[in-house]
C-alpha cells in the first residue's frame, strides 16, 4: 500500500459501533487527506451520523481506531477540541440570544480565532447580528451554526447534514460558504443524503450503506465505475408503427436499452456520437420522435445500481 507523503487528516480503522438492536457502523475504514473535502453519502440510517460523531469524540466506539490530525481522543481530547469545528445535525441554539451573543459565547471557548463579528460577516449575517436567534430563517440558523463551528479557526471542519431541510436558495448560499472555507486549504468531512451536494462540494466521497462503505472515490470515478456517463431517454413510434429496439443495441457506445412505461432509456458513453446514431436509426425506420431527454449519470444512479434502492427511500 503506497503511503501518502502527508499524514492523513483523519484515519479510521476497523470502526464498530452497535446499539441495542442494530449495528450502526460495521468494520469501517476511512481516510481523509489534508485539505480535501470528503463526503459521507448514504441514506438515513446508513451510519453516517454515528461515524461522524465517533470521529468528533462525542460517541464512544465499541472497537476500532480513530486518529484525527494525528491525535487520539483518549489522550489528546483537550488539544483536539481546540482544533476542530463541529456542526451537529439537530442542535437548536438558544432562541433568546442574539446572533452576536451566540457567536461570542462559542468564541469564548477557544484560545484563538477571529473576532465573533468577523465570523458573522463570513457567513453573511452582519445585518442580523443583533437579531434574536428565534427570529432567523432556517437557512440563517444553519449559517449561524456554521459560524459557531468556525469561531475557533479550525483545522478540520465536521459538518453533519449541513443543508438538510433548507430551500434550494439557502442550500446554494451555504454551499458557497463551504467552498470559500475550502479555499483556505483546511479539511472538511461532511455527511449528506443529497447526491448533488456531495458532487458539488466533495473531492472524494464514500457511499455508506448499513454501516459499511460500499464505494469510495471521486464522484466522477464512482459514476464511471458503475454506469456509462450519460443516460438518454426518448419516446418514439406509435401503436401501429412501433420502433424496433434491436437495431439500437447494436450501435457502438449504446448499452442497456430498456423500455420504461412507454419511453426508452439507455446508457451511452459518448453523447455526441450516440444521439446522431439514434436519430439516423429513427430516420431509417421512419419512426417519428416525440420526446428526447439526456442527463449525466449522478451519484444517485451509482447508489441505485449498487443497492437497488434510492437514497431517500426511508
Amino acid at each position, binding site marked *: 500500500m503506497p503511503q501518502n507523503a502527508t499524514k492523513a487528516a483523519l484515519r479510521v480503522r476497523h470502526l464498530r459501533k452497535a446499539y441495542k438492536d442494530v449495528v450502526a457502523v460495521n468494520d469501517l475504514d476511512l481516510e481523509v487527506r489534508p485539505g480535501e473535502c470528503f463526503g459521507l453519502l448514504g441514506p438515513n440510517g446508513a451510519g453516517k451520523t454515528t461515524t461522524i460523531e465517533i470521529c*468528533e*469524540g*462525542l460517541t464512544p466506539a465499541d472497537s476500532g481506531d480513530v486518529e484525527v490530525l494525528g491525535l487520539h481522543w483518549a489522550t489528546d481530547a*483537550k488539544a483536539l*477540541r*481546540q482544533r*476542530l469545528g*463541529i456542526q*451537529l445535525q*439537530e*442542535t*437548536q*441554539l*438558544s432562541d*433568546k*440570544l442574539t446572533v452576536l*451573543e451566540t457567536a*461570542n*459565547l*462559542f*468564541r*469564548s*471557548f*477557544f*484560545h484563538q480565532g477571529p473576532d465573533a463579528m468577523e465570523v458573522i460577516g463570513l457567513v453573511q449575517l452582519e445585518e442580523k447580528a443583533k437579531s434574536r436567534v428565534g427570529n432567523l430563517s432556517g437557512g440563517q440558523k444553519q449559517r449561524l451554526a456554521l459560524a*459557531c463551528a468556525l469561531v*475557533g479557526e479550525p483545522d478540520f471542519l465536521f459538518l453533519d447534514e449541513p443543508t438538510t431541510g433548507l430551500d434550494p436558495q439557502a442550500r446554494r448560499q451555504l454551499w458557497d460558504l463551504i467552498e470559500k472555507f475550502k479555499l483556505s486549504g483546511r479539511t472538511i468531512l461532511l455527511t449528506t443524503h443529497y447526491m448533488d451536494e456531495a458532487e458539488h462540494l466533495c473531492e472524494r466521497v464514500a457511499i455508506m450503506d448499513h454501516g459499511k462503505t460500499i464505494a469510495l472515490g471521486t464522484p466522477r470515478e464512482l459514476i464511471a465505475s458503475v454506469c456509462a456517463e450519460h443516460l438518454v431517454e426518448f419516446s418514439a413510434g406509435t401503436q401501429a408503427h412501433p420502433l424496433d429496439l434491436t437495431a439500437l443495441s447494436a450501435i457502438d457506445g449504446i448499452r442497456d436499452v430498456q423500455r420504461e412505461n412507454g419511453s426508452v432509456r439507455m446508457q451511452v458513453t459518448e453523447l455526441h456520437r450516440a444521439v446522431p446514431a439514434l436519430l439516423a436509426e429513427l430516420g431509417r425506420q421512419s419512426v417519428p420522435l416525440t420526446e428526447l431527454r439526456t442527463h449525466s449519470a449522478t451519484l444517485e444512479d451509482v447508489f441505485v445500481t449498487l443497492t437497488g434502492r434510492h437514497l431517500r427511500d426511508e
Partner: protein
Amino acid sequence: MNNDNALFQLTLVRFREFMREPEAVFWVFGFPIILAAGLGIAFRNQPAQVLPVAAVTPHLSASLRAEKLLAVSELTTADAQRELRNGKVVLVAETGADGAVVYKYDDTNPEGRSARMLADRAVQRAAGRQDPVAATDTLMREPGSRYIDFLVPGLLGMNLMGSAVWGMAFGIVDARRKKLIKRLMATPMPREYYLLSFVLSRLVLLVVEVGAVLGFAVLVFGVPVHGSLFALGFYCVLASMSFCALGLLIASRVQTIEAASGITNAVMMPMWICSGVFFSASRFPAVVQPFIKALPLTAIIDALRSNMLQGATTAQLLPEMGVLSAWLAVCFFIALRLFRWR
C-alpha cells in the same frame, strides 16, 4: 479581554435567557410580592369588629347603645325578624313578660354568641348592675406576632426553593432536549463551567430576589429582622445551593420538559405542604416531625423565622445548617454520577 472568558460568557447567557423570559421573571420577582401583599391585606389587624343588632323598643336600644362594640338599629318586631333572617343583624333584643329581655340569635354563629354577651352586659349595666371585680384591657398589636410576620420567611423559603429547582431543572433539560449540551460538549468548553454558570447566575439573581421580597415586607408591612442580616444572607445562599443541587439531580438524566416538570412538582409539593410555608409545621403529628425537620425547605424556613422573628444566632441554627449542607452534598454527589452530558 473579559469578553473572552468562557465562564463569564456562560453566566451572562444564563442571565440573558432568564431576563428575556417574562414569565420566569414574574414568578421569581412579582409573584412572591403579590402573594405577600394579598395575604398581608387579608390578614391585616382590623379594628375590633362592630356587631349589628336590632332592638324593638326605644328603652332597649338606648341601653344597648352604651356598648361601643354594638351597632344598634331600632326596628318594629316584624322588621327585626326579617333582618335577623337575612343576616343583616346578628341578634334581636325584645321585651318579654314582667320587664324581662328576650334575645333572639343563632347560637351556632360566633358573632351571635358574642352579641348576646355584649348586649346582655349592656342591658344589665343600664339596669344598675355593678361588676364585683374591676377589669381593664391592654391591647397587643406588636409587629412580629402577626400572620404577615410568620408568612414572609415562609414565602422567602418557598421562593428560594422554586427559583433554584426550576431554574436548574428547566434550564438543563431544555438545553439537553435541544441538543445544545451535546453541541457545547463538542467545543473545548470545560464541563464544570457549564454547571457553575447556573449556580453563579442563581447567586446573582438571589440578591435581587431576596432583596425585593424582604425589602417589600420590611417597608410596607414593617416585618422585623431581629437577627443579623449578614447571617440571613448566608442562610439564603446555602439554601439556594442546596436547592440547585436538588434541581441538578432532577435534571441529571431527564430528556423532556414534561418529565422534568412532573418530577419537580412531585419533589416540591410535599415541601410546600409540610414545611410550614403558610402554617406552622408543628401542626403535623409528632411521628412525622423528624421527617419534616429533615426537609431542606423546613430547615431554611425555620432558620429564616428564627433569625427574623427571634433574632437567633447562627450557633443556635446549626441543626438547620446541617440539614441544608447534607442535602447539598448528597444531591450534588449523586447528580454528578448520574449526569448525562448529551
